[in-house]
């Protein structure tokens, strides 16, 4: 039982991270029907943005007050990258068949990874560590350090931070999508951009907002990841992005709650698989396999995802 509770906590932590990233996939997909493969890299850039902020302004300082600045730095880096990417690469492809933006997304994803790998350590004016290998991430007081023990369950500080971030972001997002006009505009654009324009909706602005919102959450996730695993690297976006995308699809892509539910489900499944699948097909090396198996099963039996709405194709 303790072990169950312990892995539940682990799963929730992992899942929160997935969920934060997944929201970005979902929001963008919902609007432009684009699998933004580069979103994982936005998450990675968020982490590097936070690290850079810390290195430039606070190197050596680990007090809690630096954290908000790091998060701000992360968001600035992620949002800038995401918005630029939308402007330069995706916008010209509006209306092109699906495959074109998808390939572009893969291209951007590779490009961003390589860019950080090759140039992070060679930026002008600043002395950043070489990013060709893992780079240590600052451990901030209060949100890292000795874990809390609740009964026999250990709860890490960074886990609390991550889960907290998710709760706050999700609440904000819910309000934004359902209670603001921009949110409703987003939904309209997602279904028929041309007609949305006829309603007086500035489609380009809405799309930029979607990218920015996704990037903001990814940036927060980047910081959380850095605090949890103590180091970051240019590759971290790939698998995390893949899992987050899986989570988004699992939950029902296009649906913000789906992303959250999908992320948490995926995280918990992974943690439980490590602990409870007996025999040689259990354990850590198989956990990703179980995650993908779950995805495939869900898609086959409920193609629209856990919370997704059924797409109507009327003849």
């Amino acid at each position, binding site marked *: 039982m303790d072990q169950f509770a312990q892995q539940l906590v682990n799963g929730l932590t992992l899942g929160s991270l997935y969920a934060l990233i997944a929201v970005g996939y979902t929001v963008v997909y919902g609007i432009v029907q684009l699998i933004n493969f580069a979103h994982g890299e936005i998450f990675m850039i968020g982490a590097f943005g936070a690290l850079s902020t810390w290195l430039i302004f606070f190197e050596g300082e680990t007090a809690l007050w630096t954290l908000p600045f790091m998060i701000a730095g992360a968001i600035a880096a992620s949002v800038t990258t995401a918005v630029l990417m939308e402007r330069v690469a995706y916008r010209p492809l509006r209306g092109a068949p699906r495959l074109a933006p998808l390939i572009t997304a893969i291209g951007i994803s590779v490009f961003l990874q390589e860019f950080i790998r090759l140039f992070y350590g060679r930026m002008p004016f600043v002395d950043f560590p070489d990013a060709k290998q893992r780079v240590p991430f600052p451990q901030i007081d209060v949100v890292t350090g000795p874990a809390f023990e609740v009964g026999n369950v250990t709860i890490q500080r960074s886990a609390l931070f991550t889960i907290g971030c998710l709760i706050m972001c999700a609440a904000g997002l819910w309000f934004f999508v359902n209670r603001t006009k921009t949110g409703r505009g987003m939904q*309209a654009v997602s279904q028929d951009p041309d007609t949305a324009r006829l309603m*007086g909706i*500035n489609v380009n602005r809405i799309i930029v907002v979607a990218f920015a919102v996704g990037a903001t959450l990814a940036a927060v996730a980047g910081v959380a990841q850095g605090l949890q695993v103590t180091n970051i690297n240019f590759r971290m976006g790939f698998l995390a992005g893949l899992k987050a995308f899986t989570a988004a699809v699992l939950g029902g892509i296009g649906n913000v709650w789906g992303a959250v539910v999908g992320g948490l489900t995926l995280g918990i499944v992974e943690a439980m698989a490590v602990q409870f699948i007996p025999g040689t097909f259990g354990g850590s090396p198989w956990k990703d396999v179980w995650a993908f198996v779950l995805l495939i099963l869900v898609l086959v039996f409920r193609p629209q995802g856990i919370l997704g709405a059924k797409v109507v194709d009327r003849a």
Partner: protein
Amino acid sequence: MSAMLEVRDLEVSYGKIKAVKGISFSVDEGEVVTLIGTNGAGKTTTLRTISGLLRPSAGSITFQGQDLTKVEAHDIVQLGLAHSPEGRRIFPRLTVEENLLLGAFSRKDKDIDSDLQAAFELFPILEERRAQPAGTFSGGEQQMLAMGRAMMSRPKLLMLDEPSMGLSPLMMKRIMTTVTTLQQQGTTILLVEQNAQAALKRATKGYVLEVGKIVLTGSGEELLTSEDVRKAYLGED
């Protein structure tokens, strides 16, 4: 008196194909103006250009004295020009009510609720099904929703593109009556129709388009009785 909408020498192309080849017409305040013509004559193209979805390759469009050719589609709505597009184009995964509210997206005033009620009165089915995803509506139902939605922006000029397409006779009458009602309430209307008879009967002015050019102009009645029109568009020989 200058016209509310003035289109001059408008040309629009899709790639190399010119779909609209220099047409001019005007709509005065309070009028119902109708464009009729064969399939592919360029009616839809004209409307889409006026509302900013397409850019003209030549010519000018002025609405209440303002040049529209460089204004973004979403800003044109704010000026009071609504467009109910061909093929309804409702938002399929949003509910009926959400669709209607989107019609009022660019409005900042507080009367949205009363307009919503007005739309429900006009089309009771919309109220009955207000929470149903609009994509599951039948064609006619969708058309009503599209009209209701366009009205929600409280337009000064409402452009309707084939509002009767695929509608039952009864429903078509209802839609046509609505056009009259709207006109009486002070909305100017630019109507594109295949059902020339019904359209011309209500029109103060009509234009006949053929392959991108205006070939005939006149009041609704004149056109209705014109020999050419009767032959080509009313199926009488």
